[in-house]
């Protein structure tokens, strides 16, 4: 297997409704992949399926294969039992959970919490303390942080501790779910730079989940945009942001304020994304899409839209975006 992670036709359902379906993703060694989309689009669900940590009542199908450095046979995550997953999680693939910096135990010192993870997964007690110091150093914190309680740390410092936790057992793949959302711009940029440095130094492959395309543009090699439980566009980061091939991607990019770019606001697209598991018939973006037509009542395939690029839109590849008249803007509420 050439890639460190391969997902094929992943489907997650809950009470007979598909929350996520038809997900194919490849992650090369040392690559960083962005998974973008709005709340409820299925990005976190996809990540949890890879970790096999979906809550009870969710069913996952499709293959998920992990090929860490030096392994002969890829690990088939989808075939692992819970006991079998325990030796995979954190050692080969780990996750920085969304809002996790608030889930540090408030009455335990940081050093204790890090040691606990190391001892639990590596089963050794000597050397754990030194490993804690190494980890803190790796994420740019001083050893003194080990003696502090969570409330004594800033948001940025706590997020670094969470990243240290994810790295504790030396995984090949780290999934970071909205790692910078609660942080302000300076901290956000620092944390992104840290992830970038770790990727280079440790040869990590990174899956970065975010709703913020600006954050992704800086860190990711490739991007997959999700809408209503499906991937609607994927390709190399620079091509996707310079020349989007799905109206939803185009809209997300236009709604992003850019310093030095045009001031003011792009016209918003009305409505919100559909509820998980309840997409409209045909193309899920159709009701909000200013370019939609008769054909959009048929579901589009994720098809080639350029070199190394896929888009799920009947009209892609778009060579030129039609100019919208005011009347057609948001004409389909």
């Amino acid at each position: 297997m050439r890639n460190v992670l391969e997902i094929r036709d992943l489907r997650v359902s809950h009470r007979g409704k598909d929350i996520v379906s038809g997900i194919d993703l490849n992650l090369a060694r040392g690559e960083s992949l962005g998974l973008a989309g709005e709340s409820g689009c299925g990005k976190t669900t996809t990540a949890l399926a890879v970790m096999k940590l979906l809550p009870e009542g969710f069913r996952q199908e499709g293959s998920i294969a992990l090929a860490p450095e030096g392994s002969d046979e890829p690990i088939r995550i989808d075939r692992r039992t819970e006991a079998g997953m325990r030796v995979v999680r954190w050692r080969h693939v780990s996750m920085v959970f969304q809002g996790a910096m608030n889930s540090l135990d408030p009455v335990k010192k940081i050093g204790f919490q890090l040691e606990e993870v190391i001892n639990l997964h590596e089963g050794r007690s000597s050397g754990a303390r030194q490993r804690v110091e190494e980890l803190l150093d790796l994420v740019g914190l001083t050893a003194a942080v080990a003696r502090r309680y969570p409330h004594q740390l800033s948001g940025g410092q706590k997020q670094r501790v969470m990243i240290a936790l994810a790295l504790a057992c030396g995984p090949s793949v780290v999934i970071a779910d909205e790692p910078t959302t609660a942080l302000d711009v300076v901290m956000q940029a620092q944390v992104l730079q840290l992830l970038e440095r770790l990727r280079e130094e440790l040869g990590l492959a990174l899956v970065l989940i975010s709703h913020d395309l600006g954050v992704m543009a800086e860190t990711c090699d490739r991007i997959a945009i999700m809408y209503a439980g499906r991937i609607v566009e994927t390709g190399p980061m620079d091509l996707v942001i310079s020349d989007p091939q799905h109206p939803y991607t185009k809209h997300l990019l236009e709604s992003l304020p850019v310093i030095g770019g045009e001031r003011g606001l792009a016209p918003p697209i009305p409505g919100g994304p559909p509820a998980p598991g309840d997409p409209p018939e045909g193309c899920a973006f159709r009701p909000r899409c200013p370019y939609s037509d008769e054909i959009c009542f048929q579901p589009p395939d994720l098809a080639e839209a350029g070199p190394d690029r896929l888009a799920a839109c009947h009209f892609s590849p778009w060579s030129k975006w039609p100019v919208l008249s005011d009347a057609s803007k948001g004409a389909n509420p």
Partner: protein
Amino acid sequence: MTVSAITSLMEVDDLSIHYRQDRKTLKALDGVSLEWKPGEVLGLVGESGCGKSTLARTMLGLEEPVSGSVLLEGQAVTNRSTRSALRRKVQMIFQDPYQTLNPRQRVYEIVTEPLKVQGVEKKLHQGRVEKALGEVGLEPERYLDRYPHQLSGGQRQRVAIAAALVLEPEGLICDEPVSMLDASVRSQILTVLLDLQKSRDLSLIFITHDLSLAWSLCDRIAVMYLGRIVETGSAVDVIEKPQHPYTEALVTAAPVPVAGGGGRRELLKGELPDPSNIPSGCPFHPRCPKRFEPCDEIVPQLVSAGASGQSAACLLRGRPGEESADA
């Protein structure tokens, strides 16, 4: 504006807020002066803990300053009657629409509450509430009887805006109004606010840590650091030609959604110092890449620098011959 004599909706003059904490003094605001003009979109920008929310709360009379004054249309806000006028004329919305709405009240009750508090005649309530909901793009007949848990994040923020608008204020202070919302909902809410600014000549204050948002929305911005304003001016001037190294650092930190992103850039090191232990001299000097000899001794004052109407509190500025320090 019919009254031409009024040049500012609100003004704060040399405002300071200090808290006592473990026998230390925490200077949340330290000598802040700022003008908010009618119809203006003013941005307050800075990192968490820089005092931008405290400034907004003080302007609304929610915090008691130790010194300095708050003026509404040229009149000092000092007693109950001026304070009550302030509440009618200036309203505020907050970051988290999941926490600001009472979960046990229906939309109608939430939006009516300010009318009750201000003693507006009861027969006017229904009409005013429906008008306010209409202005934020919620059809009254569909939403009046809903509870907050039946609304999405964007709809909740719209309800919060409606509750702020129902008194027909002249100014609205928005404290990180969209930082918890998704991209498409975010632009909807911002569009609602900017449309109101135009249709009602509403004055807006946007509190944000995101300079790119300030870039796209604000007429003027004030950059804050450790309880002080370190730079102010028109949004375009301040962001395109920052005169304070801190503003420059914020511009650098803003994400750039173009191929290659921000590239290898020099980021500000460290975090905001403890506000109960503000560094001597220029409070920014320990993190400043351009600091020089007297920065740890002299506290810089805001002086004109850069474009007209722009000023910065940096020792590099305002002295002839030293303006070529731009990178």
